[in-house]
């Protein structure tokens, strides 16, 4: 598949004797929402970390938008248009929600070596940041220090930061982790609205959300892809039901 926006080729990673990514080949098409599901310890977060550059694979290659990015540092991948959220919210707690997002806008805008002018008062940074906050429903909380936001709001803030980067591919590592029922429904609604603007790799345990959103699902078990295909096909796959979905779909 030559026009995949993200393509992993025979990726391997082990921590000591534990193989967490085992000869994994995986791709994501433009504008596709590709969900990755699997039991705890299947290597989902490690996979996301390798794509975003926080963990280096032992072998294999990662291609992004037609470029080999396997050796690129995290910040360079982000500059190319690879955004991510974290399983445990990773924000700047002392900065306001608006500043958290404005920094992402600033990163896209370049010229961060500017030493004059109050960054916090720049409309060119604040307006797009405000738009991203409005997108996730946080506009009214813009001036609250991010550390003081409620859990669900922090999850939404992570999304706003990612949106502000205008990514080509967005990696979401369990965006619904720890959120309540209503918040999950809101996040699903939000992701549905965002779908199609860019490609999304969604790692998630909430099967209702996954089956509602995904164009394609890959099931990861012990670092290997057990099955991959449309939601209907994956749901019907007896191996998947036996290995994973059996208990999850109770």
């Amino acid at each position, binding site marked *: 598949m030559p026009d995949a926006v993200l393509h992993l080729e025979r990726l391997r990673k082990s921590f000591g004797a534990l193989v967490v990514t085992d000869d994994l080949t995986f791709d994501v098409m433009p504008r596709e929402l590709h969900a990755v599901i699997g039991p705890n310890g299947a290597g989902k977060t490690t996979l996301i970390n390798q794509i*975003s*550059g*926080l963990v280096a694979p032992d072998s294999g290659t990662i291609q992004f938008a037609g470029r080999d990015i396997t050796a690129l*540092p*995290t*910040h*360079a991948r*982000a*500059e190319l248009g690879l*955004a*991510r959220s974290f399983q445990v919210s*990773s*924000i*700047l*707690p*002392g*900065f*306001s929600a*608006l*500043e958290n997002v404005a*920094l*992402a806008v*600033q*990163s*896209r805008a370049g*010229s*961060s*070596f*500017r*030493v*004059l*002018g*109050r*960054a*916090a*008062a*720049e*409309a060119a*940074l*604040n*307006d797009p940041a*405000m738009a991203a906050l409005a997108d996730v429903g946080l506009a009214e909380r*813009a*001036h609250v*220090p991010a550390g003081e936001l409620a859990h669900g709001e922090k999850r939404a803030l992570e999304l706003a*930061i990612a949106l502000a*980067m205008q990514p080509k591919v967005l990696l979401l590592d369990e965006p619904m982790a720890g959120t309540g029922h209503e918040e999950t429904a809101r996040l699903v609604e939000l992701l549905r609205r965002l779908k199609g603007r860019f490609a999304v790799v969604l790692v998630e345990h909430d099967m209702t959300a996954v089956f509602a959103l995904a164009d394609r699902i890959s099931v990861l078990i012990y670092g290997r892809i057990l099955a991959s295909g449309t939601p209907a096909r994956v749901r019907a796959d007896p191996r998947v039901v036996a290995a994973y979905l059996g208990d999850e779909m109770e």
Partner: protein
Amino acid sequence: MAVLLAASPARPRGRLQALPACIFLAFALIPIVALFAGGTYLVSLGSRVMIFAIAAVALDLLVGYGALISFGHAAFIGIGAYAVGILSVYGITDALVSLPVALAVSAAYAFLTGVVCLRTSGVYFIMITLAFGQMAFFTASSLAPFGGDDGLTIAARNTLAGLPLLRNERAFYYFVFVCLLGTYLFCRALVRSRFGRVVRGAKENPVRMATIGFDVYRFQLATYVIAGALAGLSGFLLANATEFVSPAYMSWQRSGELIVMVLLGGLGSLDGAIIGAAAYLLTEEWLSGVTEHWKVIFGPVLVLVVLFARGGLIGLARDLARRFARA
């Protein structure tokens, strides 16, 4: 978008603007007070406070805003001072030459060492900056042609464009005053700028900063060089104030004192760094007149400040102001 331009409610303004105004007004008035009491002693003590305040403000950029705990900051002061001393040995005694040289050499040392130091973080960063500081110290000690251990006496203060302006104690005082004011205003603009926001963000969460596309290392290196150059400025002034340079200027104890100044004043506040430098040096001046073992008294006081006034003196002042506003 008026809402956006409104100040974020988290930071009370206005009142805090009054603080730097008070600080600089007080410094500006000292030579006038000295006409009536204190004389040149007061003026030269004031210069000394401001000179160290410059270095403390620079260090606060690293420690307070960047979470880069440099334990070798005195080295840059020493390098700035030695630039003045060594140039004077060769008969170059004008500030128009020695000041740019002092800045350039300390910035260069900051760049070369920063390239290595900033590959590490946490305790390793502290240790490696200490190591580079000690390297500068021992290099200076072994500079036999320039006094070695004993240091180097400078025949006279630098001239300024040929004029012996700095030799007048009051004129020198106001020269230092302008340097401190410039340093303060520059650093204040810096921490609020786009650049400064990246540095502050990297202090809070470097991984997040990398994943939104910032090469944190480059920003930290630039900050390290700026802080080094400003400490070099402080060294240039110190050499001229004392007409003497010595390896003791770069001892690790001196680096420690600078950290104490920043902590005492309040981490991450430029006003605090100036207040901390003043509080430290004035306490030293006063207590060392009372007893030779003044550190025995100063030590516990510092412990109390760190334990009970986490924001340093500036935090204490803020709390008091808040309490007064409520009463």
